[in-house]
């Protein structure tokens, strides 16, 4: 069903939802940017429409809402393990089609890869409803269309802001009553980005010979292995499990997981000094092939959703879409 709501009505609706849900959306954090005095656009909790940055792209994806950077798995007391169970409130996330596709990639790894389901992810994930944000016309580093992640049907509510009205299409029956209460019926169809400035050609088959190509040496000279590209990526899921004990009571502690990155030193270190991919370019090769080839081979869809965040955040101005296209050219030859 479609609805039109005034800004005021939408705010009332958000306020009512706020009792039952934590609401996350792209938000501008003044003075938190990379350059002194600049703003950071990132996910944060919001209470009203004006806080939602409809016209900005976040530097970091919404994944940390359901896959926190740092997550306690369980606590150790002297003789037992106590699991960390999240609070009861639901979660609403305002996000674009690329990021919904991105979360589907996380679902694939955490819930489908192998016989075990990741309970920590699942507990947070099943509380989430997606509020699909209208995306138009996209940004200069985006290439979602080439990867088919410009669209989605997987949402509870689609939201488009136009002047002083908010147009919504509601799929989620649980929420329909609220929209009925605050809005008037209207014809609303989601629209999606149909063309990006940047296009990529994803190679179909990759031979072993690609691994030694000169391309990667060039990237070794440029990439500083800072890992920002993987931190910003909506589809990176790697983590490392660590134990710690508390300073004030060494008998108690916790097991936790923290984000890890294939771009950063130590990811593959093994006993006996064996470390794979010492060259930074080889790490970029590993990441690139995972994003556009390995994942697809295993699960049928590319991992990368073309959000372009890795390009936006790279301090060395390495463009991932250019990297994909260079690889495509090499393989085409």
């Amino acid at each position, binding site marked *: 069903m479609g609805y039109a709501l005034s800004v005021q009505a939408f705010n009332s609706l958000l306020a009512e939802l706020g009792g039952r849900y934590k609401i996350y959306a792209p938000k501008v954090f003044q003075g938190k940017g990379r350059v002194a005095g600049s703003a950071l656009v990132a996910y944060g909790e919001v209470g009203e429409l004006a806080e939602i940055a409809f016209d900005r792209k976040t530097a970091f994806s919404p994944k940390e809402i359901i896959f926190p950077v740092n997550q306690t*798995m*369980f606590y*150790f007391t002297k003789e037992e*393990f106590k*699991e960390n169970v999240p609070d009861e409130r639901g979660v609403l996330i305002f996000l674009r089609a690329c990021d919904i596709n991105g979360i589907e990639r996380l679902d694939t*790894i*955490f819930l489908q*890869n*192998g*016989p*075990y*389901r*990741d*309970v*920590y992810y699942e507990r947070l994930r099943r509380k989430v409803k997606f509020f699909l944000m209208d995306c138009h016309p996209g940004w200069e580093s985006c290439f979602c269309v080439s990867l088919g992640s410009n669209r989605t049907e997987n949402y509870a509510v689609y939201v488009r802001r136009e002047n002083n009205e908010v147009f919504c299409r509601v799929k989620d029956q649980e929420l329909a009553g609220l929209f009925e209460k605050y809005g008037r019926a209207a014809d609303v169809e989601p629209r999606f980005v149909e063309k990006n400035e940047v296009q990529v050609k994803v190679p179909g088959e990759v031979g*072993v010979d690609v*691994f030694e190509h000169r391309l990667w040496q060039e990237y070794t000279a440029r990439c500083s292995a800072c890992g920002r590209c993987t931190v910003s990526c909506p589809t990176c*899921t*790697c*983590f*490392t*499990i*660590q*134990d*710690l*004990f508390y300073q004030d009571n*060494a008998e108690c*502690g916790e*097991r936790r*997981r923290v984000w*890890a990155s*294939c771009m950063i030193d130590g*990811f*593959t*270190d*093994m*006993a*006996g000094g*064996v470390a*794979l*991919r010492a060259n930074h370019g080889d790490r970029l090769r*590993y990441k690139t*092939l*995972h994003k556009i*080839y*390995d*994942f697809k*081979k*295993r699960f049928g869809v590319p991992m990368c959703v073309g959000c372009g965040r890795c390009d936006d955040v790279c301090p060395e101005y390495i463009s991932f879409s250019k990297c994909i296209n260079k690889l495509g050219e090499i393989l085409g030859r």
Partner: protein
Amino acid sequence: MNANPYLPVRAKILEVVRQTEQIATFQIESPGLNPVPGQFLEVSIPKVGECPLSISDFDSDYIELTVRKVGKVTGALNALRKGDHLFIRGPYGNGFPLEKLAGRHVVMVLGGIGLVPVKSIVNRYYQNGGVKRLDLLVGFRTPREVIFQEELARWQEKFNVVITVDQGEPDWPGRVGLVSELVKEVAGQERAVAIVVGPPAMIRAAAEELLKSRVAKEDIWVSLERRMSCGIGKCGHCKISDQYVCLDGPVFNYRQVEKLVD
């Protein structure tokens, strides 16, 4: 499988056997685990950490682990004694395809601690037979690093066991040199099937020698070791190409291995 796969269970250490200064074998009470040889456990000590360890042997009510002290967790494990507890989850991974070895001439090429994941297989062949011939080629760095000395001596009765070290010592009676160099002495006469476990460079050299001795790629099985954290296909550390060593391995056929690039 609704339970939390990350929650380990407590298990009591029944016996500790010192193998070398760095390596010890632990027999752990753990009924009903029924692993496949070649599978591994995630073993942990709360507040220290967790690490993957191969099951070196097992019975219906115990599991045996053989641990080399290299760092935090393995160091803390090394200090444990009979009656202490540790924590385990698993078994994980695929294990060796034993049906492919049945009745065949089997060549095992093992580097040091690479002996660990195959020990239970050799013990079963020793007790019950099941293969036509077994050549066990084991390489250690030095004579002091030889593990499972008793077992190796016992296995000599029934199998061709050749032990070599990289660096000999004056009273070392065995061979000196790379274990991969021994392959041509045993493989080749008849269609053999091979198992290779060891560090990456050793695996490469051994596979090359096996192929030279006309062992078919399909008949070479390799157990890979990669950095692991979760053991269940989530953390990403062990991924090579489209394969997860913790889920799809650690045992791979050589046909697959040759297509995997780190």
